[in-house]
């Protein structure tokens, strides 16, 4: 047992009962305190067993049907996008400076200076490519701090962000999608994702993009955040 100020935080940390602003200091402390790490490993056995205490139930069959419908649809969409999905169509000038859109803490991040290629693909409702002629005028514009990204907007449906050259978000972290409307702070979505080993990633943007000024992606702690805590790695302006 440890005898310092973090002694009792081990249990609360494992139960996810620490206040959000207590988590980072505790995790920083863990890096330097072997005794707390040992205690954490011991108590994790109990914390990991807790979900098994629930009465064991069988999920409704239609839940699987709903989930697999989305999964199969997205797999087909990715396969349909195929080689064309990686084809750059035309770069565009950004409508505004990246930093001007963001809170001061974000605009100071040097990684944003690496903003890269802009690419656009528009897919029809069934996932068929409409081709470049459909892109005149109001194309989505996408900026990636690292690598490349594109926003695939489906007619009458939600959209998909596809990225390449993305670094993994790191242990215990995920990328989270945010929707920003004019004059408002970015709103969190439940779209959390990681990057594959080759740096590619894709994620569905939930809901309609009507009235959305910018789709942002930031790195957040596992489970996501209610407010962005890091600078965005992707910024997309829907068409």
């Amino acid at each position, binding site marked *: 047992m440890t005898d310092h100020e973090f*002694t*009792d*935080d*081990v*249990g*609360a940390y*494992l*139960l*996810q*009962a*620490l*206040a959000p602003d207590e988590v980072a200091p505790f995790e920083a402390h863990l890096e330097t305190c072997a005794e707390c790490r040992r205690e954490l490993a*011991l*108590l*994790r*056995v*109990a*914390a*990991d*067993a*807790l*979900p*098994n*205490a*629930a*009465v*064991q*139930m*069988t*999920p*409704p069959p239609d*839940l*699987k049907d*709903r*989930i*697999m419908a*989305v*999964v*199969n649809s*997205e*797999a087909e969409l*990715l*396969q349909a996008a195929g080689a064309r999905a990686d084809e750059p169509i035309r770069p565009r000038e950004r409508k505004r400076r990246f930093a001007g859109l963001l809170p001061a803490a974000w605009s100071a991040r040097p990684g944003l200076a690496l903003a890269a290629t802009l690419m656009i693909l528009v897919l029809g409702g069934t996932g068929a490519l409409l081709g470049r002629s459909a892109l005149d005028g109001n194309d989505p514009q996408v900026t990636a701090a690292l690598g490349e990204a594109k926003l695939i907007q489906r007619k009458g449906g939600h959209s998909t962000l596809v990225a390449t050259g993305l670094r*993994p978000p790191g*242990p215990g972290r*995920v990328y989270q999608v945010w929707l920003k409307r004019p004059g408002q702070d970015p709103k969190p979505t*439940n*779209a*959390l*994702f*990681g990057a*594959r*080993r080759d740096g590619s990633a*894709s*994620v*569905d943007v939930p809901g309609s993009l009507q009235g959305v000024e910018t789709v942002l992606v930031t790195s957040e702690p*596992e*489970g*996501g955040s209610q407010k962005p805590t890091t600078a965005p790695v992707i910024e997309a302006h829907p068409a």
Partner: protein
Amino acid sequence: MHLVARTDPRAFECLYERHSGAAFSLAYRMVGKRGTAEDVVQEAFLNLWRSGARYERTRGSVRTWVLGIVHHRAIDALRRSTVHDKRRAGDEGIEERLEAKERTEVEVARRDEARTVRAAMDTLPAEQCQVIELAYFGGFSHSEIAELLSTPIGTIKGRMRLGLEKMRNALVAAGGAEGLIA
């Protein structure tokens, strides 16, 4: 490592088949509403699918990892919808309707594990069991629990740690810890 490629729905289906029962059970235990529990499980598994089921062995077994994601999503749901007030009035009778029948070895094992864990929790003093339940299944922070119980935060944190310690000892004594975390 990625467990599931985004072009391989069948591999994802296997992952779902293996872990959806425990996931739904945990989600329902936490949010107390069938519809919300289904939303939590759906969010969690689609998150897994869209991330390519990126799994790190250092975080424990695949099941522990999946249930950790479900737990996060359920806490989000609790905090989003003030379910803290509503969750106590769960869907009456649903547990009987959806409780897993002991048809397969996996389901039998799940129910045996559930009994082992509940027995370990039963060894705790009531006040330690209470704070663990409120924190883990209720999604309450230590300060919220302190306020609910009119008890100092330090005492609440101490009960959490001591409770987990006793529960671990009970699990090890029962010989169930290895199986539960494998």
